[in-house]
């Protein structure tokens, strides 16, 4: 045990019976990659928008020797990430970390860490809307039939609309994917930039939607293909410049406003990745004149 547990709760807050029920849903989800498994979502001591689905999945899979990392938009120190981390430190007494490499369980709201994941890690996503077809077909009975019969033409209708309206596929978040050549899945709500990281990932990926009471999963090394058209192929977001702090290329960048005169810079959204690179001595244009052995923000 690494942190003092608050008395009066079962390990990781949920009672054992509830955890077993969630684990059964997770096992089923792993057995049918991309399929949305209903589960009896419990009330959690936090509002729905805060990732109660992810929290329940994490509670069901975490063990006392696990090391937990929680990110929100790639950052470990937003209110949401901090409070979920504290929640598990208090209710499960597990060690927490901000380092991707050190974590065994990573709960995320939007991003997949830039550092490659391993077979020893589980990535838990907090999902707001698990059903990718809902945009065009609000009837749940109908979307269930569409999944059962693999009738996914409607998803391309949405992509068609994107191109007709914007000249290109403008969907940048929750970009639809086909899993293992079978189920259509919402890669919700990560940026499409991260879709290729889901493909054949060595880590187990679990998705929990609390309000919608659904769990789905990508077992390690599962095929995840982003939908597209032959003449409008899937493309990840491209950034013109490297990170202004750590000079990383090919990573997802956030825009940061520097002053009220329009000054701005682009920096890694994955704060741990950025800090690790700076500790290794990488310097972006904003830090060009700071010494390599200190001064990292």
């Amino acid at each position, binding site marked *: 045990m690494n942190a003092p547990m608050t008395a009066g709760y079962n390990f990781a807050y949920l009672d054992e019976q509830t955890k077993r029920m969630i684990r059964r849903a997770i096992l089923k989800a792993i057995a049918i990659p991309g399929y949305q498994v209903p589960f009896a979502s419990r009330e959690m001591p936090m509002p729905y928008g805060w990732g109660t689905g992810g929290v329940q999945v994490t509670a069901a899979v975490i063990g006392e020797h696990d090391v937990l990392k929680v990110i929100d938009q790639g950052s470990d120190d937003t209110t949401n990430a901090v409070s979920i981390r504290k929640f598990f430190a208090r209710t499960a007494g597990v060690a927490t970390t901000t380092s991707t490499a050190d974590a065994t369980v990573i709960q995320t709201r939007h991003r997949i860490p830039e550092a490659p994941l391993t077979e020893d890690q589980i990535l838990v996503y907090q999902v707001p809307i698990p059903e990718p077809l809902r945009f065009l077909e609000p009837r749940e009975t109908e979307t269930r039939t569409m999944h059962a019969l693999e009738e996914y033409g409607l998803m391309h209708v949405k992509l068609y609309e994107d191109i*007709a309206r914007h000249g290109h596929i403008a969907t940048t978040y929750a970009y639809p994917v086909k899993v293992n050549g079978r189920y259509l899945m919402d890669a919700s709500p990560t940026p499409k930039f991260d879709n290729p990281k889901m493909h054949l990932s060595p880590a187990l990926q679990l998705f929990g939607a609390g309000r919608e009471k659904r769990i789905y999963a990508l077992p390690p090394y599962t095929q995840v293909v982003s939908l597209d058209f032959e003449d409008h192929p899937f493309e990840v977001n491209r950034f013109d410049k490297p990170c202004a702090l750590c000079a990383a290329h090919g990573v997802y960048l956030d825009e940061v406003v520097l002053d009220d005169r329009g000054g701005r810079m682009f920096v890694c959204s994955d704060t741990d990745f950025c800090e690790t690179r700076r500790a290794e001595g990488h310097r972006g244009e904003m830090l060009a004149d700071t010494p390599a052995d200190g001064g990292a923000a």
Partner: protein
Amino acid sequence: MSAGHDRPLLQVEGLGKSYGARVGCVDVSFDLYPGEVLAVVGESGSGKSTLLSVLSTQLAPSAGAVRYRMRDGVLRDMFALAEAERRFLMRTDWGFVHQDPRQGLRMGVSAGANVGERLMAVGERHYGRIRDTAADWLGRVEIDADRIDDQPRAFSGGMRQRLQIARNLVTHPRLVFMDEPTGGLDVSVQARLLDLLRGLVADLGLAVIIVTHDLAVARLLSHRIMVMRQGRVIETGLTDQVLDDPREPYTQLLVSSVLQV
């Protein structure tokens, strides 16, 4: 005539549908041949829509059978098809034109996507080709190409109905069901739609089962007519013969009330 044309496309036998104690339709039998247009007429509540819903497999029958000749030439019992097969048939080889276009269109997506949906459903994955085909079909139903990105919400009633027709015909179905396709439209708009339908049906060699209470529509579009009353078919025959020389008193009444209009 090719060999396929002397074999019925659709065989209906003893078809009935009741809603609990209430009769929807009873003991309906007929054959429909490729390229043939059959009008189903009768007063309100006579069972026309019920019959159409059962024929198009949207309602399960209480009695009887519907057999359809698939593209491979084999007659199949429609209610014995697996759901996947049945749904595939409905969006490829069949069409259904609703009286209310809001039921048959996706009002929240563009005209182009409405027409392209069936193509995407059968696996077309080339945006440019989908768009070209959609533009071509909009032209065939007399909708200006520059409306391709507009939603049907912005269309008039007649345009919506024409869009619904294009959306159904894009996969070159062989059988199209229509329930009062000109109902609720102004007379002049109706006339234009009827002309258009007549041309398309002839060009494409479509078999059509059209429900209408408007005998003028039946006269203009159909080869054969079926008169329904209280759920039963009481008279059937070539459209001109039945309308010019009705045998049943009920049909005579229907025809004369039209003449008075």
